């Protein structure tokens, strides 16, 4: 007697309700980098939530401070920042509750920057050296980002994620004169465009159905 196995040719279509699953996390790479370099430190947090079947709304925020201390300039700065954006996942879910995915996304970032008073030295062996101070200043700055990355669930509700970012200031002229060394959330403030990366540890909660 022959038995013919029947093949289920129906494709699995997995859908989830909007805002049913959330993840909160911290950028571990910034914590590590802050302990390894002496001229800046920053902390970044992330909250994201699923929206539609293949979109994720993302909110990132944090703070940081930096300093410049070389033979020509010396000053400190600090800032708060936030980034809001949306990601599109690239792969279909393989089963209900599958949260592993690659994504591309866009972000709008903005920050309030406080640059402290700066001391400068201009060296001139022919006529003599000059020293002086530049007043502190506050800035509002904003930028746009393209990002792409990957988030994978390696234990139940615990995720790791990594991504790269390309950023560009919307108001680059703000920092033409004596920029802060580092703007948390953006990077080196003397660059009109910047490249960045993140490595997140996240915890998820909510319904995966």
């Amino acid at each position: 007697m022959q038995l013919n196995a029947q093949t289920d040719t129906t494709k699995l279509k997995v859908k989830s309700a909007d805002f049913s699953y959330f993840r909160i996390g911290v950028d571990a790479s910034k914590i590590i980098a802050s302990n390894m370099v002496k001229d800046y430190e920053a902390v970044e947090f992330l909250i994201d939530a699923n929206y539609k079947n293949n979109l994720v709304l993302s909110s990132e925020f944090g703070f940081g401070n930096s300093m410049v201390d070389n033979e020509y300039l010396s000053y400190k700065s600090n800032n708060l920042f936030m980034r809001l954006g949306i990601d599109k996942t690239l792969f279909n879910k393989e089963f209900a509750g599958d949260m592993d995915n690659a994504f591309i996304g866009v972000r709008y970032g903005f920050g309030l920057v406080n640059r402290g008073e700066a001391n400068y030295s201009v060296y001139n062996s022919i006529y003599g050296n000059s020293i002086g101070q530049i007043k502190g200043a506050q800035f509002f700055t904003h930028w746009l980002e393209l990002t792409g990355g990957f988030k994978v669930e390696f234990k139940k509700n615990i995720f790791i994620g990594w991504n790269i970012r390309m950023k560009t200031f919307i108001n680059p002229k703000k920092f033409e004169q004596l920029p802060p060394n580092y703007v948390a959330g953006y990077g080196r403030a003397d660059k009109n465009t910047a490249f960045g990366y993140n490595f997140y540890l996240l915890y998820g909660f909510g319904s995966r159905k």
Partner: protein
Amino acid sequence: MNSYKYGFGIWFLLFSLFGAACTNKSVCLEPQTVALRGGFYYSNSDSTISLKDSFVVNANIYFGQGNSYLNNLKNASKFSVTLSTISDSSLIIFQSDSSNFMAETFDTIRAYHENELNFISVACGYQFYHQINKITYTKHSIDTIYLNNTRVNNDVNKEHLKIVLRK
């Protein structure tokens, strides 16, 4: 997790780490020199102002604090000197014949200028540019000085003074 997703994630991580390694700190490359630049000329016989380049055979230019810096010009038609960053005038002494120390071979040129702080970069800090307001000079070897460009910055192609020498 499916293996193709896993492979994609690994490649993406490696790419991210590579990109992170390429992010480098600001480095101060040698800042460009800010100098007053001049040239030596004789005027045409009809005194029109189409100047012809002239060589000084063996001249000296003294400048700096106490005029202690010397620029020896041999068969040269151009020169450059730095201006003071701590006062609003700079004294330059032109000796038309370095082997002759008679008074008539020396001319003094004084440039009156405003010093402006100019930001270079975080790594290099600031430098001074100058805005020349006036030039005064003696006329032993010098006939006339034309102030061609009043802004002294790091543009190496600008000539600020045209010094017309007596024939």
